Each structure stands twice: as structure tokens, then as C-alpha cells.
């Protein structure tokens, strides 16, 4: 056996300037943040910490308004527990709710690929109406564009929403304080795994529904029960990415307890099989909250009395102010760091 030359071992991978948008730029993780910082915020917005909240706040003639927009491009259009229509309404309602706003009205824009059947569109619209009624918002305006085959994938829906921020409510990712309890409203990763199981290419079946749901009534109950500092819906990039964003915005260290994380058996099993960490899998009907610790029990009780907060629990604490960090005490007593999703969530090789 010839002796291998390890001394010359190099791993080349040149530093490459990203000159092309790749799917990872839309994954909600670090690449998405790079895109925001490099291009959108300098070009279109201000790089203030609050610009990274789920909704913008606007004060106008004594009115405190929240404004947000979100595009929905899920494939397949219908998945266990939901569809693109319910997702489009809930996504925007939840973004408004995550700054403590009461959602008032939405707009919707449809981009439709030619060839889509009326029946499919009817089902999506019915689902949007049901979700809007559940949330108590009305859809005030809309727009339709039809593009030629191949220019879109069946149906894309953009929704924008406006809400009213009640007097005295100040919720932001920048408001986490040392001592706050970190609360999650229920099991993590249900949406991402449910959609994945319905997608071609990964051939497995399971009994699991997406959690897609409007969270504004849950938020109203929380705000009435105690002092809430931060709310965020951990969609793309999952709970890990949401918590790292909050740690960065607030300048705090957050510590999670692994054995407190609520995970359904199906989600755990799918994640074990595919090599995913459930903390990075998307949710569409869950929120994470930082709540003043003395009020945590009251807020939890209020959450558990609502439909979408029945399994709410404390998963960690804001330990202190300092260099932003999220870490986790593992079930066996070790610690590890939690970082944002770097790009796309990829199944492992073996």
C-alpha cells in the first residue's frame, strides 16, 4: 500500500462572489438575510432593527397601523391540512399578529399559469374565504394576472394586510429582555414535514397535517393575560432561525431546553430519517414568544384555553444581555449552539 500524502491535503472550494439568486436565498435563513442586507434594505428600506419584524408599523394622524405583505408559492397547492389559499390568508394575518396588531383587511394578488382549472381555483378561493372568516378579517381588494405556461408554477398568491396596533402594545424582536420566558404555542415542524410528505421525490406517507392557522385570536388572548415582549411566527427557517433573529435584534443570549421542545412523533421520525433538525423545519400556525417571567404562567394558561395554543409550553429562557447567541441544553446534559439555516434544507446522504 502506497503511503498517502496527507500533508498536501487541501480543500479547494474557492471563495466565490454570489452573482446569481439561488433557492437558498428564499429559504428564510442566512442567505435570505444576506440578500436583505446586501440589496433590499440599502435599496428600499432602512436597516434599523425593527425593519426585520414581521410587519412594519406606521403612525398616521394618531392611528397606529401595522402593514405587511407575503407571497405564497407552495408546491403542491393542496397538502395535508391545508392549501395555498389558507396559507396566503394565515401567513399575512399572522405577520400582523406578530407585532400585536389586530388584523383588519387584506388584499390578494393572483398570478395564475394558463391551464389551471376553474375547479382548482374555486377550491383555493373557498379556502381563503373560510380562513378570512375564521380570522375575522375581510379581503378588501384583489388583482389577477395570467401568465403563459412555464412562467409560473400553477398558482402564486400574494397577500398584503393592514392591522391596528392597540394603545400601549409594543411588540418587537428587539424587545427581548434578560429573564424572559421563551414560550412556543405548540408542536414544531408540522407544516414543513406535512408538505414534504406530499411532494414528489421523497416517497413516504404519514398521518400528519400542516398546522396552518390564523393566530390573531391566540395573540389577543396572550396580550390580555400578561406582558409580552416578542412574538414571531417561525415559518421558513423554523424556530431556530426565528430565535437567532430575535437574539440578534435584542442583543441577548437565549438558552433552550431540548427535552422541553414539543415535537410530534411523526415529525421526529421523518426528521431522523431525512437528517433534518426539527428546529429548522417550517411552521405556519405556531408562534414563539418572549414573555415577562412573572407573567409566563398566566400567559400560558390563556394560550392553552385557545384552539391553537392548547399545547403551549415554556422551552427556554433569555439568560442575559450580551453577544447574541442561541444555545440549547441537550437532553443528555450537554450544550450546543443553535444557528440560522444556512441555505436550503437538504436531506443527508447516508
Amino acid at each position, binding site marked *: *500500500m*502506497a*503511503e*498517502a*500524502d*496527507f*500533508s*498536501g*491535503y*487541501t*480543500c*479547494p*472550494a*474557492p*471563495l*466565490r462572489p454570489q452573482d*446569481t*439568486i*439561488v*433557492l*437558498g436565498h428564499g429559504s428564510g435563513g*442566512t*442567505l435570505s*438575510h*444576506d440578500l436583505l442586507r446586501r440589496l433590499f434594505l440599502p435599496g428600499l428600506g432602512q436597516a434599523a432593527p425593527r425593519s426585520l419584524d414581521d410587519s412594519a408599523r406606521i403612525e398616521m394622524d394618531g392611528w397606529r397601523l401595522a402593514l405587511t405583505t407575503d407571497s405564497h408559492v407552495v408546491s403542491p397547492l393542496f397538502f395535508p391540512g391545508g392549501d395555498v389559499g389558507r396559507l396566503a390568508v394565515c401567513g399575512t394575518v399572522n405577520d400582523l399578529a406578530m407585532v400585536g396588531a389586530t388584523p383588519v383587511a387584506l388584499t390578494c394578488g393572483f398570478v395564475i399559469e394558463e391551464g389551471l382549472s376553474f375547479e382548482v381555483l374555486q377550491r383555493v378561493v373557498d379556502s381563503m374565504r373560510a380562513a378570512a372568516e375564521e380570522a375575522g378579517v375581510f379581503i378588501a381588494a384583489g388583482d389577477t394576472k395570467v401568465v403563459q405556461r412555464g412562467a409560473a408554477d400553477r398558482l402564486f398568491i400574494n397577500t398584503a394586510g393592514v392591522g391596528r396596533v392597540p394603545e400601549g402594545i409594543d411588540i418587537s424582536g428587539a424587545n427581548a429582555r434578560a429573564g424572559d420566558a421563551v414560550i412556543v404555542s405548540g408542536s414544531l415542524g408540522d407544516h414543513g414535514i406535512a408538505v414534504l410528505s406530499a411532494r414528489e*421525490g*421523497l*416517497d413516504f406517507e404519514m398521518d400528519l397535517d400542516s398546522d396552518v392557522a390564523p393566530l390573531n385570536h391566540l395573540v389577543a388572548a396572550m396580550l390580555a393575560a400578561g406582558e409580552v415582549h416578542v412574538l414571531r411566527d417561525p415559518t421558513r427557517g423554523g424556530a431556530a432561525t426565528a430565535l*437567532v*433573529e430575535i437574539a*440578534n435584534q435584542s442583543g441577548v443570549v437565549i438558552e433552550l431546553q431540548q427535552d422541553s421542545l414539543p415535537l410530534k*412523533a411523526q415529525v*421526529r*421520525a421523518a426528521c*431522523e430519517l*431525512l*437528517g433534518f*433538525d426539527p428546529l429548522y423545519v417550517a411552521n405556519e400556525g405556531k408562534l414563539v414568544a418572549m414573555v415577562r417571567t412573572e407573567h409566563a404562567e398566566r400567559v400560558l394558561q390563556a394560550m392553552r384555553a385557545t384552539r391553537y395554543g392548547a399545547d403551549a409550553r415554556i422551552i427556554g429562557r433569555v439568560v442575559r444581555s450580551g*453577544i*447574541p*447567541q442561541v444555545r440549547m*441544553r*441537550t*437532553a*443528555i*446534559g*450537554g*450544550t*450546543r*449552539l443553535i*444557528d*440560522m439555516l*444556512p*441555505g*436550503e434544507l*437538504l*436531506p*443527508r*446522504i*447516508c
Partner: protein
Amino acid sequence: MKYIDEYRDPNRVRALLAALQRATTRPWVLMEICGGQTHAFLSHGLDELLPGGIELVHGPGCPVCVTPLEQIDKALRIASRPDVLFTSYGDMLRVPGSTTDLFTVRARGGDVRVLYSPLEAVLLAQAHPDKQVVFFAIGFETTAPANAMAVLQARERAVPNFSMLVSHVCVPPAIRAILDSPENRVDAFLAAGHVCAVMGYHEYVPIARDYRVPIVVTGFEPTDLLLGILAAVRQLEAGEARAENAYERAVTLEGNRSAQSAMSSVFRTVDRKWRGIGTIPMSGLGLRPEFADFDAELRFEVGDLTTQESSLCIAGAILQGIKKPIQCAAFATQCTPQNPLGAPMVSSEGACAAYYRYHRQAVPSG
């Protein structure tokens, strides 16, 4: 969850750690061959619970890390062709070749798809007879049987538009290469449980004997890892050097005979280049001549493509256990998972990525 929770039981972990503490009287350097084990140690925070004298170094068992640059360049060239539907395991998409990566090829219009099984690539080829469907067959003995099955199915079903870009590597020659290196400091090896589930561990018996080094077949859950370490330390403390199985629920001495037979009917042992290490004789698997029709290198005439590698990172030292990722000046500064300088930072099994994700201290992210 059954078959998982019992191997992560904190009480069993504590008992094994106490036994390990009692068994360890001197410092020992152990290498876990497989990157999956590196990630398991760090994601459970198990590394910091080990007795102080035990040092873990991370081996070359990361298929993404050791796939040579020129194989990636071949993949990129094939995937860029308009007539090709290129399929791969997910991890491979992020690995940069000398100019770009598969993500970017896809963003520029290439049809690149992530599959979880190579058998799906054969189905895709049948569903798209107008396209050339190519599967990027990388990995150790773990992925080779399924890849062999895909080739056998393609032949049985006479799928002419299916081919495979093969870059398989084998574990035992890598262990020998590490032991042959004059800089070797590894006292014992934890062999990868899933590789041994396929191959058995009879190949390690002569290596353990000839090099006087304990090799312990080890699983992936916290108690599995601790059982492997405990067995290795007990051998070292007793002055023994054997191939030992600490993963009996999955591994036998002979391994999975039908998987091995599928592999040997499709693949033969060949010299294989390892990224940065260079060519290790008889360390890889290539298609047998009778399956040459399914060889993407021949079909797309990329066999003679060679790429010169640059020398920007210390992955060589990391993969043989001389240095830890955090000892690299580029770690978490110039080199991150978004902008990897080296393959160990790319793969979900790479040692640098594991340190970046779980152990990067006080580096603000984002």
C-alpha cells in the same frame, strides 16, 4: 420514539460516562471515522461530557468532503447540458467545484434534482425518455448497494437514457492510509456502524492486528457512541488491539451478504483519488466493464477532465486528526457554511460544519 429514545436515555448516558471515567487512566486519541458520528457527538453536546483525557479527532468519513474536485467539475459539466436531468443526494448540491456549484447550475436553467434514492433516478429516466438522466453516485459502502441496485434495474428494464457518475470510496483503505502516515496520532478507531451493517467488520480484523490498533464498530446514538468509546479505551488500557463490535443490534462479522453481492456484481475495486489526499490505490469502486453503458463519464466524455486544487484551507490536517476546525484561521471568518473554503464546511457531515453549527463560541451570526 421507539429505537431512538432508549439510546438517548440520560440515565444510561450518565452511567456510561461514569464507567468511562473509571476506565480511563491516561490520555487517548480516538478517531471517529464517520462524519455522521462527529455530528452526533456535537449535536448532543456529548464531546464536552467525556473524561478530559479522551480526545476525539474527526476522520475522513464524509463523502462530500473526500469527493475530488474534478468529479464535481465533471458533474457540473454534465448537469449544465440542456439534454440532461441531473440527480443527486442533497448535500452534493452545495459543494463548489472550481468555478460554481450545482445550486447555481440549477439557478441558471440546468435541471438538477435532489433525490433520496437512486432508484427514483431510474424511474425518472423512464418517465423522461427524451432526457439523459444522470445520478451522481457518491459515498462510502453505505450508499453503494442502492446505487448498484439502480444500475441493475436500469439494465433489467433496458433504460437507455440512465447513467451514473460514480465516485465511490471505501473505508478500510482510508484507515490504512491514516495509519501509514508518519504524522498519525490516532490510538484507536471508532468504525462507522452503518458501513459495517453493509460490509460487516471482518475487513478490520487484519488491520487491527497488523497495526496493533483497536477498531470498534460504533453506532450513532449517544449510548452507542459511549459504548464504542468505552470498548476502545478498555482495549487501550489493557494493551489490546482487536476489531470489536459495539453495535451488535445492527452489525455482524459478515455483514449484509445480499447487499455485498449487488455491489460486487456492478462495481469493482479501483484506484480512487481522494480530495486533497491524492490517489489511494484500490480505495474506490467503479463500474465493471460490462456496465460501461451506464457510465456517465464515458457517455458524456468527461473522463479526461482534471482539475488542479488550490491550497486555501487546512482540511487535510483536520481529516487526519492533526488539527481541529477551530484551529483554522479561516474558521467562521472567511470560511462559513454560506461561503465554504473547504468541503468539511459544506457537508452536513463535515467536521468544520459540525463545529460551526454547534460549537462556535460567541461569534455573532447573521
